[in-house]
């Protein structure tokens, strides 16, 4: 019987907020082919949400999905993928996913569900209570208007201290496309907060007491978990430390493995000195300190500890205590986050961008985290901040905002790099107050629409890092040449793919990387040194495909693509190899159904192709190559006029990128003229119904390939 599989919780929970109907479905029966996470979300959207549905329509669905490995001790699981018609996608909303870590995904599994599908729209503010089999829609009138912190506290008082609350703040309530949902203090999914708000859903609180069963031999499982731990590096799978250690042959000053003897968590009480062998598995958490990596050495003294998702030993959400901000800005002295969300506040200010930033940048980060992670405002991978800078510095705001509104904004503080500016700006965005607040709350596309600014003003300007469709680049040519470009053409939001960048930035010498590349992708030419790019070739396209498939797989299994894949390792005795089959080994043992790497990668391809199909369907056009997979002009330029393929430029060549796309479409088995899959390709991936549906709508390539 299907339900006897391990790994999966076995059920999908459906809640219709319009009717109040609550029901469950069998996961394996309905969704095994797409595994879970993003795959399950895409399938629900394909089956149930018609083309043309708007993000805030009651007909849009919101799919919170964990994956088969979530809730286990597989390192770096704990991811929830939230799939919906994505509101910041411009000029037309299309399928997209927000991703959050924290403890929500694991709790959902322990409660007995692989996914939660939210449908319809409540007629008043509600929250959803999930306690194992007991599920209720409860009134949230008393919570409406509250920030995420207060909402979480009050719901925890009602449900018990160890529930996990995923809530929206004021931004989500006001149906801001830039709204986020947040669980466990700092773990946010961008773009979907407003969709929750449109459904009048303030929060989902989950309590789960059940188990995720490991179907395979438990000793084998334990062995595999320990092996995985042994090939972990630090955050982003940087496999060498940023400093020479006796145990390591290699190091890289740019590595996120910054923890070393002599450093300490200075704000722990009492402080925790980093001692002993930092390579030891009992010290993995001390390798990563996101605050120290992004903000510099000063951050160590403010560090309370690392924090992060269920079962993850990396702890990339560094917890900081900075007493001065309470006095200066009247905000709590503690905050935690990682990467862009850690730097939410700092990135608005031109004067705080230099280097690691130091003390002033740390304070701005504290103010930013306090506001963004309580009101639930998303940064769109820093595009919000870059947009404001360009709007202000480029004189757009002065020209377009009414003079009264313009004068009401404390620009003097902004000019002084005073973080207090954020105390004015961020609530404007969250509450969609005034024209500036409203436009910024709707994302970059709203800037073009509202103020009649041509998209090319952004797309031509490298400093915006704008890519397309209202979203920025995310590890593109600056990191990984054509491979990065291909990946950035494929999504309807910023490409949240890290498979490629985690490899090229892993810190190993180029020769070692090329050796590993030969083993995995068939040629040392599958990657170049950064800024020393060679023309496109099929191996780079193969690596781009692999990167995308693994990203989709990770989002489907609930494993972190910010950490994975694990094809490189810190272990010299392995020649620094990781394990390209790790995901399939884990899934096989968890479910009890053996699945090899090739079969699992095919599932990843199926999921990714479903994303493609949804995009084609909702755009109503088959020519993805010209209509979707576009590259901004700045990619083909260089500030100093350097020619493509000369050392020291990330400038790409148009014709060469055309060839790179050809290679990629060929690797995918797609029509190279349109970049669209044919009926046969859909069928080969077990998506015959999808292919037929698109064919009936005239949305497969002409030659029927």
């Amino acid at each position, binding site marked *: 019987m299907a339900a006897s599989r391990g790994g999966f919780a076995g059920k999908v929970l459906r809640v219709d907020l319009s009717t109040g109907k609550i029901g469950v479905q069998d996961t394996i029966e309905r969704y095994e082919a797409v595994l879970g996470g993003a795959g399950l979300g895409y399938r629900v959207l394909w089956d149930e949400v018609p083309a043309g549905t708007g993000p805030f329509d009651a007909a849009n669905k919101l799919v919170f999905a964990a994956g088969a490995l979530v809730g286990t001790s597989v390192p770096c699981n704990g991811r929830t993928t939230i799939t919906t018609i994505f509101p910041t996608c411009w000029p037309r909303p299309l399928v997209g996913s927000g991703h959050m870590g924290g403890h929500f995904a694991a709790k959902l599994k322990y409660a007995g569900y692989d996914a939660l599908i939210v449908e319809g729209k409540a007629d008043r503010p509600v929250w959803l209570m999930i306690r194992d089999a007991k599920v209720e829609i409860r009134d949230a009138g008393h919570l409406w208007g509250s920030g995420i912190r207060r909402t979480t506290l009050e719901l925890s008082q009602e449900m018990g201290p160890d529930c996990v609350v995923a809530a929206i703040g004021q931004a989500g309530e006001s149906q801001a496309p830039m709204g986020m949902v947040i669980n466990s203090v700092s773990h946010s999914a961008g773009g979907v907060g407003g969709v929750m708000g449109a459904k009048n859903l303030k929060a989902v609180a989950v309590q789960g007491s059940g188990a995720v069963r490991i179907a395979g031999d438990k000793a084998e499982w334990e062995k595999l978990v320990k092996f995985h731990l042994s090939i972990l590096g630090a955050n982003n799978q940087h496999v060498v430390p940023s400093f020479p250690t*006796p145990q390591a042959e290699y190091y890289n000053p*740019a590595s996120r493995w910054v923890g070393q003897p002599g450093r300490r968590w200075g704000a722990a009480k009492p402080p925790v000195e980093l001692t002993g062998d930092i390579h030891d598995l009992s010290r993995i958490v001390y390798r990563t300190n996101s605050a120290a990596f992004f*903000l510099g050495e000063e951050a160590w003294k403010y560090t309370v500890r690392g924090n992060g998702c269920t079962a993850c030993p990396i702890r990339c959400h560094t917890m900081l205590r900075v007493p001065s901000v309470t006095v200066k800005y009247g905000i709590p002295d503690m905050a935690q986050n990682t990467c862009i969300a850690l730097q939410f506040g700092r990135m608005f200010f031109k004067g705080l961008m230099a280097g690691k930033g130091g003390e002033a940048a740390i304070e701005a980060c504290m103010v930013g985290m306090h506001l963004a992670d309580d009101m639930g405002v998303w940064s769109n991978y820093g595009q919000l901040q870059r947009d404001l800078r360009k709007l202000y510095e480029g004189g757009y705001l002065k020209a377009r905002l009414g003079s009264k509104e313009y004068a009401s904004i404390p620009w003097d503080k902004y000019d002084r790099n005073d973080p207090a500016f954020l105390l004015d700006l961020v609530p404007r965005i969250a509450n969609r107050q005034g024209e500036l607040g409203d436009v910024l709350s709707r994302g970059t596309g709203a800037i073009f629409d509202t103020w009649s600014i041509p998209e090319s003003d952004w797309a031509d300007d490298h400093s915006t890092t704008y890519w397309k469709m209202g979203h920025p680049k995310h590890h593109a040519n600056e990191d990984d040449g054509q491979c990065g470009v291909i990946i950035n053409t494929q999504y309807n939001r910023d490409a949240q793919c890290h498979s490629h960048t985690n490899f090229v930035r892993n810190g190993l010498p180029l020769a070692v990387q090329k050796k590993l590349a030969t083993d995995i992708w068939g040629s040392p030419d599958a990657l170049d*040194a950064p800024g020393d790019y060679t023309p496109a070739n099929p191996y780079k396209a193969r690596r781009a495909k692999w990167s995308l498939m693994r990203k989709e797989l990770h989002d489907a299994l609930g494993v972190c693509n910010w950490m994975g894949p694990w094809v490189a390792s810190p272990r010299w005795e392995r020649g620094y190899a990781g394990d390209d089959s790790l995901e399939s080994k884990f899934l096989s043992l968890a479910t009890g159904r053996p699945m090899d790497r090739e079969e699992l990668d095919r599932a990843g391809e199926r999921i990714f192709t479903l994303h493609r199909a949804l995009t084609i369907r909702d755009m109503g056009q088959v020519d993805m190559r010209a209509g979707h997979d576009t590259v901004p002009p700045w990619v083909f330029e260089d500030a100093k006029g350097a020619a493509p393929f000369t050392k020291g430029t990330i400038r790409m060549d148009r014709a060469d990128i055309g060839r790179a796309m050809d290679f990629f479409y060929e690797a995918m088995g797609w029509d190279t003229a349109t970049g669209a899959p044919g009926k046969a390709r859909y069928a080969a991936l077990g998506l015959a119904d999808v292919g037929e549906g698109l064919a009936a709508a005239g949305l497969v390539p002409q030659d029927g390939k």
Partner: protein
Amino acid sequence: MSAGDAPDLGKAIVEAVREASAEARLVGADEVVERLRARGFGECLDTEPEVDPCRRVEALLSGLPEIASLASLSGRAVYHDPALLSRTYARILDRKGVTALLMAEEIRANSRDYPRPVPVELFEAPPFDLAPEAIEAAFKAMAASEEFRDIAFTTTSQGTVYLFSSLHLERDYATFLAEQDETFSMNP
């Protein structure tokens, strides 16, 4: 010494070197002999008084695949177990005290292998632990010496100094890589 003693002695030598490597120390044959004596192998070492125990230990060391030898700056061979003390770290240890050479060789290796320039701050942190004055003095020494004429620096737009070797990196490329390295925090 009977024929059966050699493997035992070999094993003890490996242990002695490993012990030092675990302490992040390089050892010469003489120190290995000392450590062997401390382990009660003195009699075994002195069975043939005409043979210098150091020579014997050296001969045995050369046949031990798990132990690596390094020609130290002093000219003598030193030993380490690369599983506990990497080649890179061993070289750094060996060059400590010869600041200009230490820095130059580290800069060259980075430029050659990864390839990348390195921020000057690298040398202020462990295991280098060089004071800014010592670094400055080393730069002056390098500038005055033909031996180090490949060592160059580039300053990023944010004012950080990165070092590279012109033997392995062109200036423009080094500048690009330095700029990229410094902006990683804005490219998470």
